[in-house]
């Protein structure tokens, strides 16, 4: 129910003339194209490194690297073997192993979308290689001494750079986190981050004084900051991607839903219409029913509220239209909850509509006005006109089902002949919220 508008009586009417926008003759109104989407630039595939399925010694890292860099496999193997033997080269090898997809994967990898170096581009690749080199170099340097203190942050930064660059690229192009949510990945990332910091601090502060340990913590924090700066754009893009993916899915779902609905309703009706093309009345009824149904689906936004006058009316009108194949133009103003009396009125109105459909002719118009002190309903047809005395067999029915019903709930029903047709007028005084029991 609409509330009464608040307005001061007697005050000046609040209105203004809407500004008319004059458009000079010969010039159409400015018309931006609303849905023009700039074409997305196709990003060329960077060369991707894969671990070949065949010709591998351990995990195919060297073979893949050799193929990717265009170097003889033996050279690469020798270089990597030296690094591994030196110690920390193992880390580099494992890293490359984890981050490089298998050759057989690569076709499915686009859909599989793992964290990998494959789309990271040459830059990331070179950083990775530099990192492997650094790991090797540090292992050769004496374990004690300040050199390591300087090298470690560089090393960590290099790792971060590789991971950051690789994932950023993947996120951008493949939306690898278009899964349910990016949070598990973020949690993994945060966990890794903490592990890196703690590990670094513990390793480097072993056997040093508190002051030195403080320096290391500071250095770690700086590294952490660098980490954040590196990852911030990526994380933002990631969140954006997740939102976009969700919207895309919602759209797809909705489209599927609409398609299903159209199939169940419109297509079925069209098939029926084609089969019964000869029967004009039946076709008109089918079209009308389908129209109403589709209209409810498109504009109604859900099911009809059965607890109100308008909801009950919609149902009654549907029923009469389907039963008789006559379109009924219904207009309802105002609304009210459906109590016993209103229910009786709706039933009487249904009888009046049926009467109009049986004896009258189209167009049939129904108007229901729900005012503060009474409800009025009008049913009008364009038939030859109902003569109560002339149709004795209907007389009892009409008297009982329309007039009797209305009288019992304290209202009344009148019928009158118009130049073409008949009009029923049903009136029901509205009882106050507190039941007075009066009629």
């Amino acid at each position, binding site marked *: 129910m609409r509330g009464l*508008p608040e307005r001061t009586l007697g005050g000046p009417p609040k209105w203004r003339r809407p500004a008319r926008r004059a*458009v000079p*003759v*010969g010039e159409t109104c400015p018309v931006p194209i609303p849905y023009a989407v700039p074409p997305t630039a196709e990003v060329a595939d960077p060369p991707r490194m894969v671990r070949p399925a065949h010709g591998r010694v351990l995990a195919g890292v060297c073979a893949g690297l050799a193929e990717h860099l265009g170097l003889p496999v033996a050279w690469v193997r020798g270089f990597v073997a030296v690094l591994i033997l030196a110690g920390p080269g193992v880390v580099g090898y494992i890293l490359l192993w984890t981050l490089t997809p298998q050759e057989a994967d690569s076709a499915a990898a686009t859909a599989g979308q793992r964290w990998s170096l494959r789309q990271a581009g040459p830059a990331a690749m070179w950083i990775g290689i530099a990192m492997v080199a650094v790991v090797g170099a540090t292992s050769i340097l004496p374990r004690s001494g300040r050199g390591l203190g300087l090298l470690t942050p560089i090393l960590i930064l290099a790792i971060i750079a590789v991971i950051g660059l690789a994932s950023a690229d993947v996120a951008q192009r493949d939306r690898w986190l278009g899964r349910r949510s990016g949070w598990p990945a973020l949690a993994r990332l945060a966990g890794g981050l903490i592990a890196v910091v703690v590990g670094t601090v513990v390793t480097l502060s072993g056997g040093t004084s508190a002051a030195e340990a403080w320096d290391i913590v500071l250095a770690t924090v700086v590294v952490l900051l660098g980490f954040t700066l590196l990852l911030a754009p990526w994380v933002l893009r990631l969140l954006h991607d997740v939102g976009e993916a969700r919207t895309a899915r919602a759209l797809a779902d909705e489209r599927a839903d609409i398609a299903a609905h159209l199939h169940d309703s419109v297509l079925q009706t069209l098939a029926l219409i084609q089969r019964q093309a000869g029967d004009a009345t039946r076709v008109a009824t089918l079209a009308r029913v389908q129209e109403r149904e589709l209209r409810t689906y498109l504009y109604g936004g859900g099911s009809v509220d059965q607890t109100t006058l308008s909801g009950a009316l919609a149902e009654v009108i549907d029923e009469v239209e389907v039963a008789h194949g006559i379109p009924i*133009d219904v207009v309802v*103003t105002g609304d009210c909850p459906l109590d016993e009396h209103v229910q009786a009125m709706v039933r009487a109105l249904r009888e009046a509509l049926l009467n109009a459909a049986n004896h009258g002719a189209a167009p049939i118009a129904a108007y229901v006005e729900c005012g503060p002190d009474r409800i009025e309903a009008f049913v009008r047809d364009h038939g030859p006109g109902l003569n109560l005395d002339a149709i004795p067999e209907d007389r009892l029915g009409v008297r009982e089902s329309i007039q009797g019903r209305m009288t019992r709930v304290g209202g009344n029903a009148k019928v009158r002949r118009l130049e073409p047709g008949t009009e029923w007028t049903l009136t029901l005084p509205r009882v106050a919220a507190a039941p007075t029991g009066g009629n």
Partner: protein
Amino acid sequence: MKTAPAPTTPVRVVLVDDHKMFRTGVRAELTEVAPGLLDIVGEAADVDTAIKVVRAELPDVVLLDVHLPGGNGRGGVDVLQGCVAVDSRRGVPVRFLALSVSDAAEDVLAVIRAGSRGYVTKSITGTDLAAAIKRVADGDAVFSPRLAGFVLDAFGVAAGEIAEVDEELDRLSQREREVMRLIARGYQYKEVARELFISVKTVETHVSSVLRKLQLSSRHELTAWAMGRKLI
């Protein structure tokens, strides 16, 4: 104020609808029910073509679909705004009659407030449509029962609000209310006139006055109602 066309001059009409089948249907129907009275001088399927055709042909009446492609994406409203202050060959403003399958209240309100002289649904019969076009060409307003119901509801008439003076823009006068109620009940203008013991001309005056209030009133319920409720 109103310049009635000489009975021999056919009303020049432009059809704007994005469904070719519908345009063909309307054209055939109008030619059949009102031969010689209506002259369909142009057709358009989108906003930009519509504005061009209207400016080139300067018709008396434009039958305007509410939903059209092109323009700013607001369909009929864009056409109305693109044709502001365009006069027909008879020297009166080009009149628009909105025609739609959509009974969504915000659509009704939008085209009426943008300047349409009336609103009918596509289920209207050919005869009624021809009569409506004639009426709009004469500068009168055309209300379907549904539009009348909308007016009654949005102006709070059902809740018992009646203007004390006719000029009040936010409410309907007693007489306007009666006219609207009869139209909502499915009465033709001449039946309304007979019922209220007034002339058809007076009925037309009342309807035009309601149209003016609908276009100019800043009554917030109009929009609120249109947004909050969608006609069945």
